[in-house]
């Protein structure tokens, strides 16, 4: 029982990170129907920006988190302008390969400039261990920080999407781009904002991962990027609550699978769940079924 609670705590932390990355995937997919494979790399760059700020400039945790989010959102907008905007009317496969080429470019440019080795992220948060259940369950304060920051970011995002004018415009664009344009919405600007917000969340996830696992490297984006994408699809791609649900679901499933001795198969289990869900309910666990139109 204690072991399950311990794994749930770890799972929620891992799930928070997946959920933050998955939100970016889902927002971009919702608005452009584009699988943004470069998103995992934005998360990696977020971690590196956080690393540089804390190590070389000696900034604290909150300022480095905010600056890293800002840098990532600018990077996301630049990527959209340079790489995806010229491709907006191309075929699906051409856009997908563009996204992959952007991802490779970011990965290997980082390898070229910072080297492929793994770096240690400094301890910027004081970690205190709280012992629960007679010391059988350890709750690190880091877990609480990660969960709290994730929840705050998600509430902010939900507020922006549901209550502000930009959010309303985003929802309009994701429903029907042409009609939104006719209603006087600047579609290009809204797409830029979407990329900025999604990338900022990925940047935050990068800094949080640095704090949680203490190690970062230029190729760290590929694995969690793919996983977060799976999370977005599990919950229903294009849906913001779906990404959050999928992220936590995947994080907790993974840690529970590891706890019961299947740690080498935890990735396989994640992908197997993905295939089963796609077969049973392709629009995701929280998605609505759409009838095919002729």
């Amino acid at each position: 029982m204690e072991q399950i609670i311990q794994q749930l705590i770890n799972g929620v932390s891992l799930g928070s990170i997946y959920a933050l990355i998955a939100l970016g995937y889902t927002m971009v997919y919702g608005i452009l129907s584009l699988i943004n494979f470069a998103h995992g790399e934005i998360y990696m760059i977020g971690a590196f920006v956080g690393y540089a700020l804390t190590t070389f400039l000696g900034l604290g945790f909150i300022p480095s988190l905010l600056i890293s989010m800002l840098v990532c959102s600018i990077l996301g907008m630049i990527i959209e302008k340079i790489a995806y905007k010229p491709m907006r009317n191309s075929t699906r496969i051409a856009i997908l390969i563009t996204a992959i080429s952007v991802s490779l470019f970011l990965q290997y440019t980082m390898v070229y400039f910072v080297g492929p080795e793994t770096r240690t992220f400094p301890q910027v948060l004081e970690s205190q261990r709280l012992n629960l259940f007679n010391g059988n369950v350890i709750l690190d304060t880091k877990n609480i920080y990660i969960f709290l920051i994730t929840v705050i970011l998600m509430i902010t995002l939900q507020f922006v999407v549901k209550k502000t004018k930009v959010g309303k415009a985003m929802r309009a664009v994701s429903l029907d781009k042409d009609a939104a344009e006719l209603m006087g919405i600047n579609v290009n600007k809204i797409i830029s904002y979407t990329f900025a917000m999604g990338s900022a969340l990925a940047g935050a996830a990068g800094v949080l991962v640095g704090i949680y696992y203490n190690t970062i490297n230029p190729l760290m984006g590929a694995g969690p990027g793919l996983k977060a994408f799976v999370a977005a699809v599990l919950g229903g791609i294009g849906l913001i609550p779906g990404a959050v649900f999928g992220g936590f679901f995947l994080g907790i499933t993974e840690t529970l699978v590891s706890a019961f001795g299947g740690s080498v198969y935890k990735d396989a289990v994640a992908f197997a769940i993905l295939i089963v869900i796609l077969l049973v309910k392709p629009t995701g666990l929280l998605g609505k079924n759409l009838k095919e139109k002729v």
Partner: protein
Amino acid sequence: MKGFNKKSIIAIAALIAAYIIGQVLISNGIIDSYIQLNMIIIGINIILAVSLNLITGFTGQFTLGHAAFMAIGAYVSAIFTAKLGQPFIVAIIAAGIAAAVAGIIIGIPTLRLKGDYLAIATLGFGEIVRILALNIDYIGGAIGFNDIPQYTNWTWLFVITVITVLLISNFIKSYHGRACISIRENEIAAEAMGINTTYYKVLAFAIGAFFAGIAGALYANYFYFIKPDSFGFMKSIDILVIVVFGGMGSITGSIVGAIVLSVISSFLQSIPDLRMVIYAVILFLIMVYKPTGLMGKSEFKIFKKGVKGNVSSKG
């Protein structure tokens, strides 16, 4: 192909001449082992690209798991030759059949999905195959499978590549191939015309997987050594890039694409630091300026005149 006409005789003569020239140059040592390595890679890439083109370019089913079939073929062939001591031809056929069976098993449920969802499901399948291979000790696990006998040579490569290209291009020109193309053009209309879309999608998937498995067998029996990470997500992307670069729905495009991209990547080997960066930039530029690929949907033809009775069925 109805009988032998002038065109097919010239084509056969050209193929035999190409084979003999290659063989003579290799046995005289004019082609050194480095160029030969690149020739083998090009041949394997042609088989992979043509077989993926059948699935993605002609039948319109977007998959990201083609490397998984190659992995299955490579491991099956490795087991047959290294562990069971079977001759290479048995191993090749077993590799193809194993990959085709995997293609049917994964294809029947997932091919109901469309577009991005199919791509995601096949991506998941590819990752599952890789992770399983990482954890089975019989085939070496993460360390890899060592000491596979080296059977692949110029003869095997040439014959199998030619057979693959011929079979797939003839399949596309057949009744069944036209059914596959109609699914790409409009699945609902094809179904309304009485085409069993599920059957043809699974058929294309199985044929594509079969040849990918054979390519895997050639790969395993050339490099002595295979490891699961060689067949990851990026390998599937590499194959897809060849197909898109050459032109989706063009067999000759896939062949040209495989040759050009293999040559580019072997030139880039000399600058290992920036290799992937330049590769990414080239990829990006191709997608922006020529998103239909080198050949589009058309085939390269030497014989422009006198093609009466050989009108392409593609629109």
